[in-house]
């Protein structure tokens, strides 16, 4: 049987998904003065997947993100991206390797304008000298324009980021990630402090990212999780407790046991 070009692509894609867990965390651990915030964490995320990380306060979610992005140095285990061991690299080197991060508290260049924020996020070239030779044009590069449209920040381009609303600041940071265009995006509670409407818009933006990027997102809002999610990983006491679809997780005995008395993850 002959396969058409389209079918071939499909086959390739299926093969790729089956064969490649391009982001792998192996037995990762870190201890702060004897307390193991992350304790033997294992995680595999496939290319283009959107994975939600759930867990109670103190389960180690943010610490895991810190370990992956190089902010905290691990005391054991490995982080692999495309088979490359990037454990405990410096932050900017990990970023160059293809991992972008959005923090829980909006983290943008507050004294600079929205336009400048986007321009700095355009970081295909990171060296000092290559950037000395680069002027700043009047028109925005295409990838920046795309991010501006997606985040609907076109009207506030020349305002200082410090005076944006909370939601706008969050979108600006997500938009900057879009411009940065990393292979893996880490999102730490992207809807924290948002109104229902803002949350919905954020869910839309994130769904648009799906497929083009691998995304690992920490989120508590179950409505939001249902809206965006394929698979969930539940963290408990610094470890991977359970993994599966929303349904599987909601019915998981292990998860119920860990959250005993709180009525399941819906109320976590």
């Amino acid at each position, binding site marked *: 049987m002959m396969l058409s070009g389209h079918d071939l692509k499909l086959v390739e894609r299926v093969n790729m998904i089956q064969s490649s867990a391009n982001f792998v965390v192996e037995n990762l651990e870190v201890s702060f003065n004897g307390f193991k915030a992350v304790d033997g964490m294992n995680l595999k995320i496939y290319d283009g997947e959107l994975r939600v990380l759930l867990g109670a306060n103190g389960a180690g979610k943010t610490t895991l993100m810190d370990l992956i*992005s190089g902010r905290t140095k691990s005391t054991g285990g490995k982080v692999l991206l495309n088979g490359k061991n990037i454990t405990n690299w410096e932050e900017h080197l990990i970023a160059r390797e293809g991992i972008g991060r959005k923090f829980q508290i909006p*983290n943008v260049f507050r004294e600079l304008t929205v336009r400048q924020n986007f321009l700095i996020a355009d970081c295909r070239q990171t060296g000092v000298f290559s950037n000395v030779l680069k002027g700043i044009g009047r028109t925005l590069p295409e990838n920046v324009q795309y991010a501006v449209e997606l985040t609907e920040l076109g009207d506030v381009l020349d305002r200082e980021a410090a005076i944006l609303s909370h939601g706008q600041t969050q979108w600006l940071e997500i938009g900057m990630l879009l411009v940065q265009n990393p292979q893996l995006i880490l999102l730490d509670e992207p809807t924290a402090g948002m109104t229902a409407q803002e949350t919905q818009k954020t869910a839309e933006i994130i769904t648009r990212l799906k497929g083009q990027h691998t995304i690992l997102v920490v989120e508590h809002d179950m409505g939001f999780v249902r809206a965006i999610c394929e698979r969930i990983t539940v963290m408990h006491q610094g470890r991977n407790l359970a993994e599966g679809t929303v349904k599987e997780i909601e019915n998981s005995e292990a998860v119920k046991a860990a959250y005993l008395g709180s009525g399941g993850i819906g109320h976590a």
Partner: protein
Amino acid sequence: MFSDKKLEALSYIAFIAFIFILPLFMDEFWLSRFAKYLVFGMCGVAISLSWGYAGILNLGQGMFFGIGAYSIAFSLKLAGSDKAGGSTPIPDFMLLNAEPNAPPELGQIVTGSWIWVPFQSQWFGFAMGLLVPGVFAGLVAYILGRSRVSGVYVAIITLSLTLLGRLLLVDQQQVTGGFNGITNMGYFDLFGLELDPYFKNTYYVIAICLTVVLLGLRWLVSTKAGLILQGIRDNQNRARYLGYSVSAYQVFFFVISAIVAGLAGVLYVIVSEFASPTFLDITFSVTMVVWAAVGGRTSLLGACIGAILLNYVGATLSETESLLYAWQLLIGVIFLAIVLWLPNGLAGLATDLVRKLSGRKGTAT
């Protein structure tokens, strides 16, 4: 309507025109004074780059200025010294410090005087005045960046290094002239043009240098690298997670700032004909920061004008008989007022004023 950009371009043009027209209205005495003020203006620019743009409060600018000053002073001193029986000129203070039977050669007359030998070429002195501050600053910034030292600690460390340098200068009297510094120098020979501090040509050379530095740095901060640097000043972590090496950018701009300070030191010696360990005093480095704060640290031109203005006002006040004892107090009050009410200095005030005026015009018509 005046956009901020237009205002800025106009201010640069007005300032540069001003410093080049000045010689038409001034006698040699005031012109030589103003040449010094322009040099201080260059110091202000250097501070603005490292403090305002890179966010590194450097209290060691006096050290880079001092290294530049001493480098050229070595050369100019030799140009103004006679031979003492040997084949090379020997500075007078070395003869005073020499052992009775020391050979009258520059390389051997006192311990460590070999360091002076290459300075017989004044272009070597000039080059060292820029190179040594640059390399030294690079080293300091690299080490501080590696260990992620920031904020007030950078200020303390740079300040201590400066004082250490001062100690060394005073201690190694036989090669540096010690407390007395270096005086009685020859002139710098710029391709046949002797830079006598009381000649108009010298003023013009300094004005050209300042113009080149101002426009060059203005261009530099307008590049993408300049924008990234400001991002780093604002939020180092965000910059890191975008893949930028924070220390690489800070080292680069710190080095540029130090080279400019070194050049200022070189020019200062050319126009004032002395080099002294007071360049490495705490007061001088702090004074430079005050100039930049008054002028507006986030504006290169503002910091430059701040330096020139404060020096001019200081000189005028100190020569007014009734203010003989109070002029420093007045300068202090000006500084306090600006820090309290004008966080962006005079440059910020100018921008706000123009914005307000043009805004009013806009609503009136």
